[in-house]
């Protein structure tokens, strides 16, 4: 029922910041995720990959944090791509139409390349 958050820089062809999330993102844990993403943006990181590969659960609060992050980086012509393979979580992005506003990729390499 908890979330682990880790941030690192990816030094591939297109440099970006990668946020690794591990666990469950809900009303209790999403403030921690929000804080991390806000911190990154405030310190000038506008190319973000959020890795949801190890996320087993996300609720609307978590989706709200991702949408909020996307809006803020867009103000700086930035972008957010997601890494997600879990079918249940993909389904939530489908149902809510968020597939249309996020780039969702199977691997981190793809998510970084397509930023």
């Amino acid at each position, binding site marked *: 029922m908890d979330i682990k958050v880790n941030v690192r820089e990816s030094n591939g062809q297109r440099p970006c910041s990668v946020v690794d999330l591990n666990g469950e993102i809900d009303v209790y844990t999403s403030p921690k995720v929000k804080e991390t993403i806000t911190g990154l943006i405030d310190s000038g990181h506008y190319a973000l990959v959020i890795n949801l590969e190890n996320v087993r*659960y996300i*609720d*609307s609060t978590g989706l709200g944090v991702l949408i909020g992050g996307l809006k803020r980086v867009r103000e700086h012509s930035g972008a957010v791509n997601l890494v997600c393979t879990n079918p249940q979580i993909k389904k939530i992005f489908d149902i809510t*139409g968020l597939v249309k506003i996020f780039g969702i990729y199977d691997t981190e390499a793809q998510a970084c390349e397509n930023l």
Partner: protein
Amino acid sequence: MRESLILETTTGGGNVVELRIPSKAEWVGVARLAVAGIASRLQFSIEDIEDLKLAVAEACTNCIQHATGGESVSITCQIYPDKIKVTVEDSGSATASDLAPKRLGEPTVGGLGVFLIRSLMDDVEYELNPESGTKLTMTKFLRT
């Protein structure tokens, strides 16, 4: 409620599991776990269990975030041979307009919870009562 349940079910009488959590974010995970346990006992598929978990968690989250003055959230699961009916109740106040079925427009930071509940469950009904709080009853059928 228990009596009408016994009348409605045919095999083995009515089963009710009740849970009450404090109206705080940290307890929604416990409701999710309990509902997942109940649903897996009922042989729901993994996908349906995840749907139920999310719908119930969204309902609890709304009680915690929006029901002014509510101290606890009650989750009641009524178990039937062919379906589960989950009631999520708070004792805070609400306004009706926000709870109506919606189509999603521009994505916003909020406003997805009720939409998800309506998408993931087979039947969803809100009862607003200014005195006694909001009561959400939602049903999911066992797919055979």
